[in-house]
């Protein structure tokens, strides 16, 4: 939550934030760890007919029915292929829980908010709304996602 939602970075330029880094196909993404609820192995997903295309279905998380968002579909990255490394990241935006499917969760990283380049300057064409920014860390390029925006669509 917090500033990830507003994308307001100026106030906390020197602050550090922790992000969960994960992989979608060959690209590396990251989300603010504060919004992540838990990371799970793949669960049985029930397809939801007539739902928007980017919604893969719903899963049962300890008695709660949670929608699963297919980012591959959303970002047009091709088909999602389930492997042993595939994970489901459950996050909460306000009171609304949802999940995303990722190909692999790599690590938790500390980044300086000052290192985040604003999305609009980098990706002008690709869903700049959803992308909070881009971070360079040791030759890696992380795309920082704004999960809240994903639910507001």
């Amino acid at each position, binding site marked *: 939550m917090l500033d990830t939602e507003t994308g307001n970075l100026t106030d906390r330029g020197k602050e550090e934030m922790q992000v969960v880094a994960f992989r979608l196909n060959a690209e590396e993404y990251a989300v603010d760890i504060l919004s992540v609820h838990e990371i799970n192995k793949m669960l*049985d997903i*029930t*397809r*939801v*007919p*007539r*739902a928007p295309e980017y*919604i893969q*279905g*719903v*899963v*049962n998380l300890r*008695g*709660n*029915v*949670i*929608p699963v968002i297919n980012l591959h579909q959303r970002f047009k990255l091709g088909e999602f292929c389930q492997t042993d490394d595939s994970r489901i990241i459950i996050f909460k935006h306000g009171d*609304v*829980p*949802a999940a995303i499917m990722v190909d692999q969760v790599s690590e938790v990283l500390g980044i300086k908010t000052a290192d985040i380049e604003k999305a609009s300057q980098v990706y002008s064409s690709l869903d700049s709304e959803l992308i909070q920014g881009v971070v360079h860390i040791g030759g890696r390029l992380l795309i920082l996602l704004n999960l809240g925006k994903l*639910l507001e669509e």
Partner: protein
Amino acid sequence: MSMDMSQYLDIFLEESGEHLQNLSQKLLELEQHPDDLAIINEIFRSAHTLKGMSSTMGFEDMADLTHHMENVLEDLKEGRLPVSTLTVDVLLKCLDRLQSMIDSIRGGGSPACDNSDLIDMLGHIKGGGKVGVEQENTVPDPMAHPVDETGWNGFCELLNDYDLDLIQEAFNRRLNVFYIQVVVSEDCQMKSVRAFMVFKALEEDGEIIKSEPPAQELDEGRFGEEFQIILVTGIDEVTVISRLHGISEIKVGEIMKLDPSMSLDSLDMVEGTGDVHTSGRQEERSDSAPTSAQEVSSTRRIRQTVRVDIRRLDDLMNLVGELVINKGRLEQIGSSEKLTELNETIEQVDRITTDLQSVVMKVRMVPIKQVFNRFPRMVRDLTHELGKEVEFHIEGEETELDRTVIDEIGDPLVHLLRNAIDHGIEVPEERARLGKPRKALLKLTAHHEGNNVFIEVTDDGRGIDVNKIKEQAVSKGLIEPVEAEHLEGEAALALLFRPGFSTSEAISDISGRGVGLDVVKTRIGALNGEIAIGSQKDKGTTFRIRLPLTLAIIQALMVEVGDELYAIPLGSVDETTMLQENEIKMVQNQEVALLRGGVLPLASLHQLLDTPGQLQLEEENYIVVVRKGDKQYGLVCDNLVGQQEVVIKSLGKLLTGTSGLAGATILGNGKVALILDVNTLL
């Protein structure tokens, strides 16, 4: 008292709401039966409690307003003021103000409010009754009550015939009547608190019908060292005394049990020839009003209830839901393992879970009264506003429904009632011309039927003109003229539920603000319910709503479509059947089957749900016959799995409103199955 009252705030808000509700209801009753003393009494009591509560909580403006209301009510009670529409109007306005103050307090706002306008109005109403004004202005001197006339003899002269009525009635009901003189110790710091404690201790299972000085003055501590009361109660003298002994700083000066013979004597003494008159009124009272004995027993009953935060009940329900799911899982294991002992235990668990579930469901059930209560007032205001005359009947308000349903049904009903008064019921002149009684009849009824509750709104107004509806539907482009010709009866009336339809040509303030019956239908549909109209020209209109008892756990039919499993609420399933391939025919590119002489349109669930596989019509096909509105459809599926209890889970904000789905449920194996909503699926 500088106690921290915040912990009582919730209770205060809740109870004051109930008192306001009760007051407005009783005021409306009073308007109908201006002579019913029991109603005035009840109103008076409610107002008095409200005043006490608000002043205890420190909401002075509220207490002040109720105090002034009480003055007017007292005049009504004593017959100094006739019950008129004006009086009732002003009192209702006061209730509105109190409600808005309570709302403001609930919202964390200030309890302060300038009520001088209403207080002026109340004063104006009282105007004529100079007695009242004087009473209000003179601060009563404690010594004004003659000292030498203490004791029963002095007191019984203060009893008016209304009090004597009550006493006589208590005798008739074999209740004990005590005269008690309570002496408060000289150095008592908070006399009013002691008096309050006495009242509280005694009213636990009785009623104080008279006190001297009056309760109001006792509340404010305006009395000397003693006060006198008449108590009607079921308990005996010893218990009364021991209760009073439990309160510090007071003692019982004199206690006397009144008995019928004695009372008649004093009645003669005081009233002289007033006997006949008194007994005459008693009869009236005893059949028209809740008597004090009933009240005594009802207070006793109320004390056995507990107020529980509704969220806790929701949590409890969720946990029971989890239990049901896991019970299902156990059953699956049990059936595959085939262990006798395990299966016996599972049966036990099953029985307990079912009981638990039904208990929790019952706890969550609320009488529909909660919703119906606010309607008499609304109907009254509306009819006045529109210059119509309506007699409003409510039946079956004790019918119970799950809280989740109760919360949702209010608005649709408001809409239907408004519609009925605004569009359905004619003005009195027109009714007279048509040979109908000037006063229209509007009925709101509720009753149980199986797992459903039916609510009906019936008026005897002008009814709905089918042809006019068809015309309008055509002119609005909702249907083709050709279509209109074939529509008849209910099917034509159902056009009213189409979005963008409004019959009244002149849009009034009351209804027709752009939202129409389609919204009502959607809301009821969202509750898994249905709505139907019946109407006869010039005879009236009936809206009939069917609602499920609960939304939390339902019986569903599980069906297989491809390799997916879906639940169809049993409420919308009429039957299941098996059709041979050659029984399925094509008519106008639509698959149909003949079922008991009728034509049943078929729809493939594969197609409706875009499942990956394709359904091939086989030699034998499973059909679930469902009902949508008044039409039947056959859903073709691959397999019928069976009937099962399912716990309805919301699909969450992201997916609610997805057409064709009513929610999701979790199966015994932990997988999610979707619950189909037949109304939006087809």
